[in-house]
């Protein structure tokens, strides 16, 4: 299903300084297929900063992130990963369907069709609704649906449970467990306790 | 990377190491100041005192000794800035970024001087402070380009990405330099055509030419001095967490 899931994500000797304050230094990790890396830490400890480094948006002050033996950024990495950050990355003036179609065009198709994904996140029926008429949590579900319809091995999620109601959280957890069972990997932050049955979860605590 | 052999790159990286650069410039500075003063003094003496009045323009032409050198510098520094920016982008040499950004304010100053002195020269010669001809206007545009560079750098908080942005801007803006230089030939304008820079035979008398060249050299040296002074602060600010800066702060911080 994931032909290149033999890849692994590795960080070596990463450090990041903001405004003279060292957020982390000499940080290393390795995520293998089927594993979850959970970043923990108090407010302001540098979780978002680290995720953005892993995405290749920001250069670390020292160290490298590599995907499949090669330092990012490179083509293969960007066709294998997907990111859901603090910002949704969905356009308010387009409908749910249009947004998802665009995501598909910018990437390769994934496991599920758009219809199946909408069913999963309980948004079916909203295909032709403009995003600006969705509530905070509905938007969040949509950006999760995007993960399902594009090809990706690695999910990078910054507080994916924000704005979700309890049902939504359970759903998200089951999607994550399923992704890992299929050989996917996840790097995420959360202030919630997560509950992933039978998944190998590594934790890194920033402080 | 890109055609340049590795050892060369490594050499430059070492030369460009901040403490090394800082120490080197500290030793160089007195010499530069002395050379500058000698050149400027002899240039001014020759230009203001020895050279005879022009048979057409009288004594007003003496503005040439600052107008033309600073106009040349305004173009030269922009090119330096763009080249340094290019080097900084490709090889990620910090020092090149610093040279680039430190040049901007010096270049803007020279552009400003060229504009003001040209304007002051234009009033007696052309009867107007300002005319909208190609060279004058394009020099004004050059000032805007410099201000854009300074403004963009100032507007960004992260100085590493600011340097990248400025480098891109400087490289894109460099297309304007030939336009300024050749504007007098492309459009018929009020402004003087090339008189000094015609390689074969400068159409200007030697007693006037020599001081002009001396002043041009003096301005080049001045640029080096101003550049170094600015670069040092930039360097200190970027490296403020490095040990050598901390030591320096304790030594020179006056506490």
């Amino acid at each position, binding site marked *: 299903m994931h032909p290149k899931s033999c890849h692994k994500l590795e960080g070596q000797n990463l450090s990041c300084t903001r405004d003279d304050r060292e957020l982390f230094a000499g940080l290393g990790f390795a995520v293998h297929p089927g594993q979850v890396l959970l970043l923990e830490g108090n407010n302001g400890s540098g979780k978002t900063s680290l995720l953005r480094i892993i995405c290749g948006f920001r250069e670390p002050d020292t160290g490298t992130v590599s995907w499949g033996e090669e330092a990012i950024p490179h083509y293969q990495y960007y066709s294998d990963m997907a990111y859901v950050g603090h910002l949704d990355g969905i356009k308010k003036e387009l409908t749910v369907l249009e947004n998802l179609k665009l995501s598909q065009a910018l990437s390769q198709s994934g496991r599920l069709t758009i219809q199946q994904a909408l069913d999963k996140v309980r948004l079916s029926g909203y295909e032709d609704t403009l995003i600006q008429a969705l509530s905070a949590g509905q938007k969040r579900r949509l950006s999760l649906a995007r993960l399902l319809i594009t090809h990706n091995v690695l999910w990078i999620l910054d507080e994916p449970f924000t704005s979700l109601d309890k049902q939504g959280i359970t759903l998200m957890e089951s999607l994550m467990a399923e992704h890992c069972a299929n050989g996917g990997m996840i790097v995420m932050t959360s202030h919630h306790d997560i509950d992933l049955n039978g998944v190998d979860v590594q934790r890194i605590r920033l402080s | 990377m890109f055609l340049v052999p590795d050892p060369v790159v490594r050499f430059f990286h070492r030369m460009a190491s901040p403490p090394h650069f800082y120490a080197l410039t500290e030793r160089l500075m007195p010499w530069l100041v002395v050379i500058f003063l000698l050149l400027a003094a002899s240039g001014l003496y020759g230009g*203001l*005192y020895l050279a005879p*009045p022009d048979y057409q323009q*009288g*004594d*007003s032409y*003496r*503005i040439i000794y*600052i*107008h033309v050198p*600073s106009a040349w510098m305004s173009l030269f520094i922009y090119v330096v800035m763009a080249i340094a920016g290019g080097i900084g982008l490709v090889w990620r040499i910090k020092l090149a970024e610093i040279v680039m950004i430190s040049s901007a*304010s*010096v270049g803007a*100053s020279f552009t*400003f*001087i060229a504009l*003001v*002195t040209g304007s*002051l*020269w234009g*009033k*007696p010669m052309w009867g107007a402070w300002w005319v909208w001809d190609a060279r004058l206007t394009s020099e004004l545009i050059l000032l805007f380009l410099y201000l854009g560079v300074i403004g963009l750098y100032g507007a960004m908080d992260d100085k590493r990405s600011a340097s990248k942005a400025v480098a891109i801007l400087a490289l894109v803006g460099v297309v304007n330099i030939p336009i300024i230089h050749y504007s007098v030939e492309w459009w018929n304008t009020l402004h003087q055509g090339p008189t000094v820079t015609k390689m074969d035979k400068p159409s200007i008398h030697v007693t006037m030419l020599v001081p002009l060249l001396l002043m041009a050299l003096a301005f080049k040296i*001045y640029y080096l*001095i*101003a550049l170094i*002074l*600015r670069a*040092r*602060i930039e360097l*200190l*600010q970027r490296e*403020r967490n490095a040990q050598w*800066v*901390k030591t*320096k*702060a*304790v030594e*020179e*911080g*006056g*506490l």
Partner: protein
Amino acid sequence: MSAQEFLAMGGYGFYVWTSYGICLVVLVANVVIPVIQRKQFLRQQALKQKRQDS
């Protein structure tokens, strides 16, 4: 040539000396400002270290 004549510049004194004056001011400012800024910066850093040490 008397000093007076020299200053008059054949009637163009205003234009010539304003030019030289402005040029001088700008060039001096370009040297003095960085020197002051460096002094300030080093002082601030020294103060900061003192704060951290204590």
